[in-house]
């Protein structure tokens, strides 16, 4: 039995909309103790946010999003989700402009009321911390209202479907979870306004910021080796969203659940990633110590295999919960489920089943996919055609340059954000 360093009592606000009265206590072995939250160098985070600000995937990888919609093996499901989700995303985009409906009660702290309402509406987790504008996407800086507090919210996605990843039923469940949390997020914002305060809904599907650091700061989990937030009760099986507000609230504190160190030992997701996109070692990245995924090896698989998510499926904390995983590790020194078909096996629709120690093989062309800003991509394609001798002098070459000019004009005049570009058409401005 390993020596226990400290214990963490998981609050009811992190255990689902209807948590049992039974206590959930995590025993963190001494050898897994690090720091509450995540190791961080504040000055470095600030430096990067000023000089190399983060940007939305929908902007800096505009062409990937468009391409992935076309090659998706679940295109119809995804298109239907986008159709149903569009009004929810649009409502969130306007939510910061709505005024409160009453005057607030002076001096009354509304933390408990907001948390209780969030759980009543079906959120699985709720925590509150300061909104950290260092993580605001460059293209969203003018959209984000100056409300100082971040209400961090998570909706559980269905358990059984998640264990079938990668599959259409699993991704359908993800889409349904996003729509459900988008809707009730708008309801929670209405409730906050009924208390006399402003509330801006940051849609999980049109993200304004990197939200994970705020969830960690609010004590809702720690970062896993696959780049997800791992929470004690759900692991990575939840979808995150945020509401910022000027309501009078108290902050939660970061917690050391032992996850930061546990992931360096477990490594199941690293071993099982079909794209070999996950790293064994943590690195310092923009001021935090974390596992940095190699997106260029992840996205080609995501696009073609129902948004993948194998790293979510094979995570023992997702599958079993942190309490039994930590108890097993403390008593045996082993990772529960590691090396077993039940945890590590997965099916990929056109290439079969892969058990422990087995991975699919993809040729190098599989990983060559469209990426980058829309204007950059247009230029890269032109350069490739020139290199290939496809742009001769004379009328044929002039035609290629005319096509390039027309395409660049279309890009420059259109939205820089791929999602907004999708949502925009002549009759229906985003």
């Amino acid at each position, binding site marked *: 039995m390993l020596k226990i360093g400290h214990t963490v009592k998981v609050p009811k606000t992190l255990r689902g909309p209807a948590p049992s009265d039974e206590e959930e206590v995590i025993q963190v072995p001494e050898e897994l103790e690090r720091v509450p939250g995540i190791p961080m160098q504040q000055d470095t985070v600030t430096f990067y946010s000023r000089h190399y600000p983060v940007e939305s995937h929908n902007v800096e990888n505009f062409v990937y999003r468009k391409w992935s919609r076309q090659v998706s093996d679940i295109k119809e499901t995804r298109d239907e989700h986008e159709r149903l989700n569009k009004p929810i995303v649009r409502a969130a985009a306007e939510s910061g402009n709505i005024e409160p409906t009453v005057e607030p009660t002076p001096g009354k702290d509304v933390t408990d009321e907001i948390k209780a309402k969030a759980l009543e509406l079906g959120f699985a987790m709720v925590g509150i911390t300061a909104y950290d504008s260092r993580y605001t996407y460059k293209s969203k800086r003018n959209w984000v209202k100056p409300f100082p507090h971040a209400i961090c919210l998570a909706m559980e996605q269905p358990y059984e479907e998640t264990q079938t990843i990668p599959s259409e039923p699993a991704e359908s469940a993800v889409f349904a979870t996003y729509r459900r949390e988008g809707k009730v997020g708008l309801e929670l914002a209405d409730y906050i306004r009924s208390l006399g305060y402003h509330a801006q809904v940051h849609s999980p599907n049109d993200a304004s910021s990197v939200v994970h650091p705020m969830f960690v700061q609010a004590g809702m989990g720690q970062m896993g080796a696959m780049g997800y937030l791992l929470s004690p009760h759900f692991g990575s099986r939840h979808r995150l969203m945020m509401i910022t507000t000027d309501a009078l609230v108290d902050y939660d504190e970061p917690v050391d659940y032992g996850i930061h160190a546990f992931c360096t030992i477990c490594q199941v997701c690293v071993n099982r990633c079909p794209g070999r996109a996950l790293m064994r070692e943590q690195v310092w990245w923009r001021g935090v110590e974390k596992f940095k995924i190699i997106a260029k090896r992840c996205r080609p698989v995501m696009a073609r295999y129902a948004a993948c998510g194998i790293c979510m499926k094979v995570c023992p904390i997702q599958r079993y919960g942190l309490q039994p995983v930590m108890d097993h590790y403390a*008593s045996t020194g082993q990772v529960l489920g590691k090396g077993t*078909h*039940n945890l590590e096996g997965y099916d990929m629709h056109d290439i079969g089943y892969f058990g422990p120690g087995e991975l699919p093989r993809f040729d190098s062309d599989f990983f060559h996919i469209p990426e980058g800003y829309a204007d950059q991509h247009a230029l890269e394609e032109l350069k490739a055609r020139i290199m290939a001798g496809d742009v001769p002098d004379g009328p044929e070459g002039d035609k290629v340059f005319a096509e390039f000019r027309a395409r660049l004009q279309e890009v420059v005049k259109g939205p820089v954000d791929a999602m907004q570009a999708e949502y925009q058409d002549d009759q229906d401005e985003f």
Partner: protein
Amino acid sequence: MPQFDKLMIDNFFAELRSQLGDEDNWDDLVKDAHLGIARSDADVDIGDIDSRVAALIKKHQGS
């Protein structure tokens, strides 16, 4: 005892669904099943899970 391989897992969950698929707490039973199989594979005590699920795990583990 052998670990659960893919065929055993598929057969186990098929029987679990046929026996208990209509239960109101089906989702909890599926969670118990995954936890029980993991502990069974690790050759440790199966712990505090639904007794019907535990019995089915033992049956399939011995098959």
